[in-house]
């Protein structure tokens, strides 16, 4: 997929996240975020620093346009950009970097891709929930929020990943 097209779709999904933040408030226990998977799907040829900068910009945009505390999504998303290359190496191996090929569900299978997303989603949620609670909520509340948000976010992220990498599959 061309970079310009990828980033156009990327921006659309960031705006979708703004809508999710503003209008999808089903319960306090659910935090739906597609931002981690968007950062994970940034083409492999981009460095960690670029990934972190894109993550920071995406987080800031959602915070700025959304209802939440300014800086919250940014704080939780930057570490995802930091660990992205390490996760790629851990889950898919060195060959991803050798061929500079983008990862897709079709190529690596749902299990590997789910692992990739779950780790990033968990990292994002831990930081997000902790910072959002600011030490005022009990541990069980945060744990329950994490336990509900992680599978929900992962399922939604898998769907997003499938549509974002569709171009590759159709080739």
């Amino acid at each position: 997929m061309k970079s310009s097209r990828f980033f156009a779709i990327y921006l659309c999904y960031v705006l979708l996240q703004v809508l999710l933040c503003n209008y999808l408030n089903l319960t306090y226990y659910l935090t739906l975020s597609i931002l981690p998977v968007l950062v994970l799907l940034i083409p492999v040829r981009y460095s960690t620093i670029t990934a972190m900068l894109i993550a920071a910009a995406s987080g800031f945009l959602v915070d700025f346009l959304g209802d939440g505390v300014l800086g919250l999504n940014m704080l939780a998303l930057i570490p995802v950009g930091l660990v992205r290359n390490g996760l790629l190496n851990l889950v898919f191996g060195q060959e991803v970097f050798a061929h500079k090929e983008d990862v897709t569900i079709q190529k690596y299978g749902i299990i590997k891709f789910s692992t990739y997303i779950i780790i990033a989603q968990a990292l994002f949620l831990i930081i997000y929930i902790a910072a959002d609670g600011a030490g005022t909520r009990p541990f069980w509340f945060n744990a329950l929020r994490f336990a509900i948000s992680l599978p929900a976010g992962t399922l939604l992220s898998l769907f997003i990943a499938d549509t974002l990498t569709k171009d590759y599959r159709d080739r």
Partner: protein
Amino acid sequence: MPRKSRTISIILTAAIFILLEVAALSMIVRGGDLQGIWVSRFSHRVMGALWGSSESVRDYFSLKSQNQELAQENYRLSLQVARMQNAIESAGGPEAGLVGDGFAGDFRFIPGAIVKMSKNKQHNYIIINKGYEDGVRPQSGIITSRGAIGIVEAVERNYSYGIAFMNSSFNVSARIGSEGVVGPLSWDGHSTNKAILREIPLQTRFAQGDTVFTSGYSTIFPPDIPLGIVTGSGIQDGTMYEIYVTLLEDHAALRYITIVDHTGRDEIIPLENMEANGEAKEETDEK
């Protein structure tokens, strides 16, 4: 990627990560009251831990000087106690026991430190960082506030050599309780904190837990230094008790000591010799 450029890349990545996170945190602090308090509390906790750790490290490295200060303080306090005791005992009033700096009654006290000490032999020795320039003389006692440690045997300009309590040829005159019976206390031969008090008559009453003190029946050690606690007893040759004592001072972990020198020893020893010579003469005459 060459190693150097890889290191630079890692440092750069870390720096940008920290910068972005700090930016996000500062936005959170400004944006949300709760988050502001949370970040501030967290930063205070981190700063507290950092300062606490550095303080602990600094404390650890200053232990040596603190120990020296404590030893000096301990010495001064011991001297003060000895002077006070002497002043109380003496009929001439509180000034009677004071002779001069470092003196208390019949004894002069010199603080010092052990520079070398053997522990694994049957005849162990001590080397102390005080010599004749500091006023140390042979046959001075080596003590702490919790025990008799040894006797000075030879003195050099700045160092002294002494035989340690953990020496099979060493014994100190000791008594059980403040008014009890006197006998020689010597090392048990293997432990660093065990000793045996011998030649205690069978009619003597004592109990486990009784304290053993120096008797003061010598020109080497002052009286009433607590040496150890009675932990058991046995009968020696059917005629005497031998009492097992756990020493208060662990002789394996010594560092700072006090050297005690009896000021009247030069007068007492000729008298002892005269007495010994007199007995020998009487025996010769009788023959």
